[in-house]
């Protein structure tokens, strides 16, 4: 199959802007088109990530954005995979191009988020695990983050200071990112004063929920060569949207119980390990080839888990890797040069696309004060509720 190239990346800044997600998505789409040097009239396919908290337009986001940008008769798709929605939309658009059904496509994700904890959709639904875990257990998303963080402490001796160091790092990275919602450097003392939400995690360890939007214009290599200086081209080397393999014995949101390992062989890799593994396999590279990575730091502790899941270090060694400075800008493999969710807050259907936008900016050498020197290869990693993996590898 021919290469698929990113021609344009665009975002609407993250924040709490109080407007419709459609407006943010349109701004990001137009920014991506301008970055690509193309117009909406050039686009042959639109793939969008859905939002569940903005009514029907959010469930048919592909058509919603096509209408907002001006109906042109092109086919669209609308994907929902929770936090992985953006990666599934990228995958849909890429497949159109790989199959020759389109030369150029746009991918859009945008959200208008509620305040505070994410809750389930309204109504009594005892058959829905997402309703059950809230009603029966009061198990919010931070509850799961707290469980993972506590397990890290008990298994590997991680401390609240280690988690705080992730926050300090990411807050410094995000200082110079105009699209970040929080551009404030945190100190360890400030973090220690933040109220505990889900022990051992404090409010500042857990990412906020944000409004925001991100978009990518992607094209076949032939189309790209005709329309843009190849020096700016960033190639999509892999997209992984894998699901778990039975039995999944690691407790994932929103489950009340894991699969049972009785009567079934354990899979070769954990679900989280398998997400990156599939991407490395497709790209034909390994963790040592990465220049930088954008990982889904829903909590500070979870960023450390991801270091291990994407193979930057062995299990239990993430704290050492962090303190060595390797994952800080200027280090061997900067993680979350954008500032990560710590500085953005989560805009669900936009987030996986935003991760790729950051890597495109880095690989082009256009990241300014947060530039990873000589970046040639980057990986994004993320996991969506109900068993959705999301990982994208881009290369120069």
């Amino acid at each position, binding site marked *: 199959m021919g290469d698929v190239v990113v021609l344009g990346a665009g975002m609407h800044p993250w924040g709490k802007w109080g407007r419709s997600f459609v407006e943010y998505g349109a701004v990001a789409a137009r920014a991506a088109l301008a970055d690509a040097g193309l117009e909406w009239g050039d686009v042959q396919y639109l793939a969008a990530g859905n939002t569940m908290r903005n009514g029907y337009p959010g469930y048919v986001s592909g058509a919603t954005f096509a209408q907002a940008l001006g109906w042109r008769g092109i086919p669209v798709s609308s994907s929902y995979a929770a936090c992985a929605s953006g990666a599934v939309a990228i995958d849909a658009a890429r497949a159109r191009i790989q199959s020759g059904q389109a030369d150029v496509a746009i991918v859009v994700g945008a959200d208008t988020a509620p305040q505070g904890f994410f809750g389930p959709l309204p109504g009594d639904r005892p058959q829905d695990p997402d309703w059950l875990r809230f009603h029966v257990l009061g198990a919010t998303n931070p509850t799961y983050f707290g469980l993972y963080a506590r397990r890290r402490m008990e298994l590997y001796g991680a401390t609240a200071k280690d988690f705080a160091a992730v926050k300090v790092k990411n807050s410094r990275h995000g200082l110079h990112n105009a699209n970040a919602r929080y551009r404030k450097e945190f100190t360890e003392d400030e973090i220690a004063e933040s109220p505990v939400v889900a*022990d051992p995690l404090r409010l500042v360890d857990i990412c906020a929920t944000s409004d925001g939007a991100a978009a990518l214009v992607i094209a076949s290599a032939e189309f790209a060569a005709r329309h843009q200086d190849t020096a700016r081209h960033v190639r999509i080397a892999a997209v992984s949207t894998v699901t778990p393999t039975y039995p999944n014995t690691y407790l994932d949101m929103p489950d009340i*119980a894991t699969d049972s390992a009785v009567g079934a062989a354990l899979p070769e890799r954990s679900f989280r390990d398998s997400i990156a593994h599939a991407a490395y396999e497709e790209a034909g590279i390994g963790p040592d080839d990465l220049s930088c990575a954008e990982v889904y730091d829903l909590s500070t502790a979870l960023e450390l888990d991801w270091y291990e899941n994407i193979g930057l270090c062995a299990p239990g060694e993430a704290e050492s890797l962090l303190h060595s400075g390797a994952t800080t800008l200027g280090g061997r493999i900067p993680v979350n040069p954008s500032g990560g969710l710590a500085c953005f807050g989560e805009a669900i259907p936009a987030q996986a696309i935003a991760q790729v936008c950051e890597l495109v900016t880095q690989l082009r050498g256009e990241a300014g004060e947060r530039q990873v020197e000589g970046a040639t290869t980057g990986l994004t990693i993320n996991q969506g509720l109900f068993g959705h993996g999301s990982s994208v590898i881009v290369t120069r």
Partner: protein
Amino acid sequence: MSKPRVPVVEGMFREDAEGTGRLLGGKCPACGGFFFPKQWSFCANSACDGTELEDVELSDRGTLWSFTDNRYAPPAPYPAREPFEPYAVAAVELADEKMVVLGQVARGTDIGALALGAEMQLVVEPLYETDDEVRTVWKWSVSNG
């Protein structure tokens, strides 16, 4: 007269003598795998074609996999008490079923004394009350031997 105690949702657990009970799950007779809650009528093991699940009680003891303490009231549909009381949540690994099951931690548990691998016991406690009923839920308590 005291209010009757009724499980907060049907079919996930049973209360026996007050405060004790069992989780109710499914077991595939073909592969032996367990499911909790019993969401479907068939087996979800990708290597098994079992089309029926037996109703079974799950173990009422296990070892602590992890735990956390929630200090803020969650959104609806959690029936938060007024004033809000923080509550801990534990993930407990059942040895026979080889699976991890979440539950709130029994009231009055010293969270600071919990540690991974601790032996835990299933208990049944009130979650909230209506005018007519006490709605109960399963919880995990540190085992006393």
